[in-house]
């Protein structure tokens, strides 16, 4: 369990990063977490003038379960029955990646996987494949897990030239921090 309750955590994080994006507050918790994780990296790594060739490869364990439950609650009372369109929109895990794409106009390849645990092998293979086959210049990878106030976001950018070698060992080490 994280010590800080998510709403407080995410509000502080968004202030620290200096985010100014009104649509942020409409997102569900998983999307907010993924979005901010991505923002922390992209704000210094994005070209504002030209189109950015950054693919997105994200994964988690609980899919969109936290929001699924919220949505289920909105249709559970047969007397007081009001499914919420805004909540329903977020009952898919890949919407968080969609939000990142919308903000930064990334019309690139994007994928979302569900694993029972973070898999550095899989992530590094997929990212390497995209870079080596020339499909994309950079890959933003992320493990973004959110369920009932247990949250973890591990987001990293991979490109051909950089300071830290992109291999399973390094990824696992950084994840464990």
């Amino acid at each position, binding site marked *: 369990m994280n010590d800080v309750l998510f709403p407080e955590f995410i509000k502080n994080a968004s202030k620290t990063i200096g985010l100014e994006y009104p649509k942020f*507050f409409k997102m569900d918790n998983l999307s907010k977490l993924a979005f901010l994780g991505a923002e922390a990296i992209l704000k210094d790594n994005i070209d504002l003038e030209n189109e950015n060739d950054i693919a997105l490869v994200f994964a988690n364990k609980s899919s969109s379960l936290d929001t699924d439950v919220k949505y289920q609650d909105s249709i559970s009372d047969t007397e007081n029955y009001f499914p919420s369109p*805004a909540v329903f929109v977020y009952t898919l895990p890949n919407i968080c990646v969609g939000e990142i794409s919308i903000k930064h106009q990334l019309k690139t390849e994007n994928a979302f996987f569900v694993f029972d645990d973070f898999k550095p092998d899989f992530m590094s293979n997929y990212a390497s494949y995209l870079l080596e086959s020339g499909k994309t210049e950079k890959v933003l990878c992320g493990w973004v897990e959110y369920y009932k106030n247990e949250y973890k976001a591990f987001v990293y950018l991979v490109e051909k030239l950089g300071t830290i070698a992109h291999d399973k060992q390094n990824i696992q080490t950084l994840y464990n921090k």
Partner: protein
Amino acid sequence: MEALKQELKSKIIEVLNLEDIAIEDINDNDPLFGDGLGLDSIDALELIVLLDKEYGIRLADPKQGKAIFESIETMAAYIAENRTK
């Protein structure tokens, strides 16, 4: 009518998660969509749910929403005329 408008502003802020916006910031005749508050199509759908939940008004066609949700003024007028709750 004034009370209804205030009530609407407060409900909209809550239902649409409009952070950092207070009731005072919303003017009766400001456009809600497009430039004004910048609401989008999903927000429109949420407002349709709001009409049903709080005021018992059911809209069958989402396109009707365009005219009704132009501003707080038009929303309040429509609700006053059609509410069943």
